[in-house]
């Protein structure tokens, strides 16, 4: 209900966790508490930013009453979706502080494994612990044996990791029951994806909450990574805040590829040493290791005009222009100037959805 004009008229304020992001063609209104977003016209973005703190009557007057009906529709929309509220003193509802800080030197890591890998898992996990790492993704490109997964998870059993995501090649031992049992024994496992499976299926979450998914897609190298797709968007405060000044993929990340080379990401060409000769600490101490951490979306061509820029997990390994570290990810088909994906056929297929499948 939009208040009637009159003395002491309230003004509309967004909830602090609902933050508008302007794109070239349209904007998003990101609800960081619910983990959702709404598309909104850039006109509404303008109202929410340039006319914040004004009454409905003042906003309508600012547009010479040319858009009174649209403005009423906008305000009703915001109320209906619980994105804001009427208040008398908006100064009492300050915006969120989007400063991002983390005490950990490394927050996340990728460990690649193939049939020829000879990683010392215990040593890697201890070093990640020393660095404060919270999340680890283990990507096994080959048909994995349960014993190998157990060896990795046992190495992490008494460490400080909070979550471990497993991407493993299908093998005869990797039955749903065996994987559910593995997750139950290792509470840090947060998700298991089995690739190269004969058929795609997604099992309901087990009692531990871990989702096990089988995919037919063969993932046999790091080149599987870097896709930009709404399914990979992360709508939550920490990522949104981190994205204001940092790269949402590479910031505080360290990776070990299948040969033991330490890199920012396994897909990146530059190695900072091999684990046989260098520790993770040693690689991290290299003056160039953190150079890419601060490339944020506001600095990247095209992405800086995209309404998804603080939800998107960027990629700096596969670029439109390999010579330009500030070019958009090559695996992103979204055009923020038309608000269209390049074509359904080129849109990344996810979760068993074949490319170009009708919607």
């Amino acid at each position, binding site marked *: 209900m939009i208040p009637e004009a009159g003395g002491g008229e309230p003004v509309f304020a967004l909830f602090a966790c609902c933050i508008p992001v302007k794109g070239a063609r349209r904007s998003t209104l990101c609800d960081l508490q619910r983990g*959702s977003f*709404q*598309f909104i*016209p850039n006109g509404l973005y303008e109202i929410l930013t340039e006319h914040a703190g004004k009454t409905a009557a003042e906003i309508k007057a600012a*547009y010479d009453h040319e858009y009174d009906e649209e*403005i009423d529709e906008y305000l009703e929309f915001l109320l209906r979706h619980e994105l804001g509220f009427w208040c008398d003193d908006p100064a009492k509802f300050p915006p969120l502080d989007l400063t991002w800080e983390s005490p950990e030197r490394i927050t996340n890591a990728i460990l690649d494994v193939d049939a020829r890998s000879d990683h010392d898992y215990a040593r890697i996990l201890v070093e990640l612990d020393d660095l404060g790492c919270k*999340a680890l993704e283990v990507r096994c490109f080959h048909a994995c044996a349960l014993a190998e997964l157990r060896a990795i998870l046992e190495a992490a059993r008494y460490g400080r990791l909070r979550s471990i995501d497993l991407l493993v090649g299908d093998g005869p031992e990797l039955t749903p029951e065996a994987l559910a049992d593995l997750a139950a024994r290792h509470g840090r496992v*947060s998700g298991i994806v089995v690739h190269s499976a004969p058929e795609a299926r997604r099992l309901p979450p087990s009692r*531990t*909450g871990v989702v096990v998914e089988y995919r037919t897609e063969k993932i046999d190298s790091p080149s599987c990574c870097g896709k930009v797709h709404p399914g990979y968007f992360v709508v939550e405060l920490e990522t949104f805040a981190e994205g204001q000044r940092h790269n949402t993929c590479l910031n505080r990340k360290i990776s070990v590829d299948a040969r033991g080379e330490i890199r920012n990401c396994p897909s990146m060409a530059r190695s900072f040493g091999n684990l046989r000769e260098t520790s993770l600490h040693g690689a991290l101490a290299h003056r160039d290791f953190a150079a890419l951490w601060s490339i944020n979306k506001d600095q990247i061509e095209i992405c800086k005009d995209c309404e998804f820029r603080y939800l998107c997990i960027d990629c700096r390994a596969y670029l439109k222009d390999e010579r330009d570290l500030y070019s958009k990810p090559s695996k992103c088909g979204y055009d923020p100037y038309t608000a269209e994906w390049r074509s359904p056929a080129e849109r990344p297929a996810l979760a068993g959805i074949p490319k170009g499948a009708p919607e």
Partner: protein
Amino acid sequence: MKKRMERLDDKLFQPLAEAEQSRITGGLIKDPPQTYTAITIFETYDPAPDWTRDGDNE
């Protein structure tokens, strides 16, 4: 500068379809319709917590 105010029922402002955003978990919140991205980390998930033991009443 005055901007053209587009109507919200334009196709451009409709929430993404479920197939466009699904990954491991998640889906559309149907009412009200909106785009929803699931958080897939379950740190302390327990579907049947023992509420009788809360630390104060051991």
